[in-house]
């Protein structure tokens, strides 16, 4: 079996497993998994830039939130139907990521981190400043009745689950495929040694530009999906911590792995959910878990598995 076939089987198998889980899990965990899938889509978007291209953005919340506001405002103020609103959210995120990329890619390393952080902070403050439309920190609710596609209510747990799975699968398959194409290999080349890659005749700036746009657009798609599926849009999602989350998820799951983002989000989600049932001091447990992970599984969960047992993992 070639690496390619194994990789295809892995991803299709994962999606099949998720379908089964969606059908058999109890309501509570089905709902959780729907959330996890949307957030994992966000993490996948982040991973394109951080895990594969080696660019650490600390401002990805602005892309997630751009998708969320683009979609949410189109429905809330414009009365658009779900699919066009999703499109609006995705386009909003794509445009924003193009602008941010053109400016931020003039910098590298820590300066890139700070520039993205500052743009995201400006975005967050702008969302508050335009409270008349965005509802500021309180945000707004997207009317339950409008959250449906062709008669399928997205508020129905099962429908919502499969909608979330569809969003996740698209992002997963796009990135998995991309990383097999020359374009994706060049991104890895940029991550490993940008100067070398340039001297092999690749326009590394253009590749990085596209990586930011793809990454930002997938993140924005996740934000738009979150708005539609869970019915709430608010500035919290544009705050700094929502830029830090995907970094944490990806590092936990394994940077530069296709399924790491999902594993990272699921691990973190259930760690918080479970620990908060035990004690109010659950952040202590989360903190300890993060420290232990750095000490004993530095490549992240999937990364360690790849390192120790399954070297072909994409």
């Amino acid at each position, binding site marked *: 079996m070639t690496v390619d076939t194994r990789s295809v089987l892995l991803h299709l198998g994962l999606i099949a497993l998720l379908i089964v889980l969606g059908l058999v899990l109890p309501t509570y965990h089905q709902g959780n998994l729907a959330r996890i899938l949307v957030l994992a889509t966000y993490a996948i978007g982040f991973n394109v830039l951080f895990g594969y291209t080696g660019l650490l953005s600390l401002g990805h919340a602005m892309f997630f939130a751009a998708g969320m506001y683009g979609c949410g405002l189109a429905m809330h103020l414009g009365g658009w139907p779900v699919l066009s609103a999703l499109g609006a959210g995705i386009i909003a995120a794509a445009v924003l990521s193009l602008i941010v990329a053109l400016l931020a890619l003039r910098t590298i390393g820590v300066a890139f981190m700070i520039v993205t952080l500052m743009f995201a902070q400006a975005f967050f*403050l702008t969302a508050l400043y335009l409270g008349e439309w965005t*509802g500021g*920190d*309180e945000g707004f609710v997207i009317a339950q009745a409008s959250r449906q596609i062709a008669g399928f209510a997205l508020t129905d747990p099962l429908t919502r689950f499969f909608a979330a799975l569809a969003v996740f699968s698209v992002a997963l398959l796009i990135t998995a495929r991309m990383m097999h194409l020359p374009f994706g290999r060049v991104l890895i080349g940029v991550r490993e040694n940008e100067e070398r890659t340039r001297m092999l005749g690749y326009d590394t700036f253009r590749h990085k530009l596209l990586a930011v746009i793809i990454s930002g657009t997938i993140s924005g798609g996740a934000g738009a999906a979150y708005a539609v599926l869970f019915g709430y849009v608010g500035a919290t999602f544009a705050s700094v911590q929502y830029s830090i989350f995907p970094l944490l998820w990806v590092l936990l799951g394994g940077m530069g792995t296709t399924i790491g983002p999902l594993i990272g989000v699921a691990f973190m989600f259930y760690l918080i959910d479970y620990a908060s049932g035990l004690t109010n001091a659950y952040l202590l447990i989360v903190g300890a878990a993060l420290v232990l992970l750095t000490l004993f599984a530095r490549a992240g969960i999937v990364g360690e598995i790849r390192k120790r047992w399954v070297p072909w993992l994409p």
Partner: protein
Amino acid sequence: MSKLPKTSRRSLIKSVGAGALLASSPLVGRFASAQSGAPIKIGFQQHSTGIGAAYGRWYGRTTEAAVKAINDAGGINGRPVEIVAEDDGTDPKRGAEVVEKFANQHNCDVAFGTLFSHVVIGSAPSAGEQKIPYFVVSEGHHVASGGLNRYTLQPGITDVKSQVQAMAPYVADNLGKKVTMIFPDFAFGHDHRDFFTAAIEAQGGEVLEHIAVPPSETSFTKYFPKIPRDTEVLYHVMVGPAVLTFVKELGEFFGPSSPAIFGFIDSLEAVDLASPGLEFLEGTYFWEGNPRYAQADQTSHDKNFRAAVGVDENGASVSDPKDVSTYAHMFGCWETLHIIKAGMEASGYQGPADRQKLIEAVEAMTDMPESDAHPQGPKVFNGKTHQVFGVQYISRVENGRLVKVHTTSIEDTLYPDETDYTTQSF
């Protein structure tokens, strides 16, 4: 501990038994039936961590006290009440997840207790989808504005729009008509800005300047020079951990020559008035949702409420006089739980299948006279807007204590309906 320390199981059953013996309601008969031993589970969405934690702690203590009082009096429909507390981290995303957890994992009958508006708004869609009644204690205008859904109600605390507009007549008549407002530059502050500006203009006054302070600001003096010199009344409201800095710097800015100062107690909620630097507040005015200091005309209801929650006559914890409560807001938890009890008893609530009946029963409520269940004062509930309206208090700082100088009427707090949730299907 996630689940609040409760009365132990044994004492709970004892007290429920006593309640059953004493109670004359025919519903108590159900106590003997097979299912009756099961407690009524109320999911308490608590701000245990995050920016709301100082409020969350007192909301927790009040809730605990109210549940004890309800259980001591025989529970609800003869069944004991159990609180299932989950931390929402004062985060709207986690808030929504917690509501789902209440509905699907803990099998709670209702969800309750949220304060911060963004968590309420973030969680309300989940409550609507899970069809679980969601009783918030937030004072936000979000419920009455019609932005939420039929499952979300605010029967225990008056909303900010009412609070603010009820202040305008007193301010205009007694303090001055040229007002400058300082408020946080996010939704809560914008509510103050919009509603008070309209209300003071209706009284023939005007707002000279709106000074919006950016969120998470920790230093404020630099914004004060925007206060016009001819300001007669300075209206301030601030929230968050930096409130004490805000008020202190306000005093340092004005020095000996300040205009009349009227503030919302939010600016000093959970803060000791005796903190150094607050001396200048002597003689200034505050809105209070519920007077922090026991007043000369204290009702027996307020006395009982303080005793039950463990608050002394200065509004601080009986065990630590420096631990000042969120007295202006936390009564809402107490009153809301009593309304849940009243609603469940009126609707003969048995289990989740009766949730719609519960909501209809609460929607049918109107007058809520001052009582041990409503220690803050009398209220009127509007079933269409799912919002309660109650009297508001204005206090003046005298000798370092807040002394009540004015009680508004309920009429002062009313405004035309902006929505009718009863027309929404369940």
